[in-house]
């Protein structure tokens, strides 16, 4: 009975969604003077950033990004708070699957490469696809690999938390520096440099690097917390 009702409801909902979105023609822009064109024009001229997505994420809508890393930070805190037990030492981890020596050796080999890739991705975020989030998640997957391969592999919670906090503090500080230097929060107060250079785009790469560190540390922390959650 319930199933039928829900299916009917979903059918109706699907109908309305389709009725709304199918009239928004695919592949055509529907607005003439939106913010998009301004962004596309100013990302090169104003910011000397090649990747428009990066310039939007870090500069035009940098405030969202600040909120977003806060969400991640809060999620990490929330996880710690929700799963908190009066047991301070993490002795054993969940063993998802026993890993063979080959896997372990491979992981060890891959780990620096992955970290390097992550770092590359977020350092070149303003020039090529990728950036802080992507690089951060890649770094986190690297740590994940190590954590899975070696059961006795530990990441220091303190170091994670220091990295995370420092990155966050620096992010806000850069924002406030912009506030002092340029008059608005997160304002680009550094010279934008030459388009295409590694050191271009003013604060954009710096902030994206900070985001990368922060996201990497947070995601690693989240996974580490959950992995250490052994109850059964």
């Amino acid at each position, binding site marked *: 009975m319930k199933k039928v009702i829900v299916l009917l409801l*979903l059918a109706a909902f*699907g109908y309305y969604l*389709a009725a709304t979105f199918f009239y928004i023609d*695919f*592949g055509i822009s529907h607005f003439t003077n939106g*913010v998009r064109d301004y*962004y596309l024009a100013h990302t*090169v001229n104003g910011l000397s950033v090649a990747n*428009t*997505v990066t310039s939007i994420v870090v500069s035009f809508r940098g405030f969202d990004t600040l909120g977003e890393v806060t969400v991640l930070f809060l999620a990490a805190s929330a996880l710690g708070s929700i799963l908190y037990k009066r047991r301070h030492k993490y002795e054993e981890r969940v063993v998802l699957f026993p890993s063979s020596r080959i896997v372990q050796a491979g992981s060890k080999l891959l780990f620096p490469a992955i970290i390097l890739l992550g770092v590359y991705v977020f350092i070149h975020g303003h020039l090529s696809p990728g950036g802080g989030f992507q690089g951060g998640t890649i770094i986190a997957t690297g740590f994940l690999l190590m954590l899975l391969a070696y059961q006795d592999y530990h990441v220091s919670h303190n170091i994670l938390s220091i990295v995370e906090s420092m990155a966050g503090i620096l992010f806000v500080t850069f924002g406030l520096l912009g506030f002092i230097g340029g008059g608005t929060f997160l304002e680009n107060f550094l010279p934008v440099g030459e388009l295409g250079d590694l050191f271009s785009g003013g604060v954009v790469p710096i902030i994206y690097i900070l985001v990368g560190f922060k996201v990497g540390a947070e995601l690693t922390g989240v996974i580490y917390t959950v992995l250490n959650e052994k109850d059964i």
Partner: protein
Amino acid sequence: MDNSLQYLEIGFYGSAIILILVGLYGALMKKSLIKIVIGLSIIDAGLHLLMISIGYIKNGTAPIFSGEDFVVAGNMVDPVVQALVLTAIVIGFGVTAVALSLVIRLYRHHGTLKIDEIKNLKW
């Protein structure tokens, strides 16, 4: 690639909406808490696909200036929705992580994952 996209026009919207509906079905009908969370994350996936599809422009290029002189390409897909989706994905991950930790807590407390049996609070 362009040709393939021609007849996928409706396909992107359609599959996005179907993903949303399937996810909703999971969230509304499945008894297992984990299934509900899976449903929610499928809804998210559908939404992200929908957003990206809306920003797509036919024959557009990725919104990244490249080449030697970084000319402004006339036809780029909408970078704004991509930025939004980027944010939304990360937020979605945070919510999923919290949800799963709650699932673990609930399992500890109730010894079950069936949402029907977890209703101490009512009326």
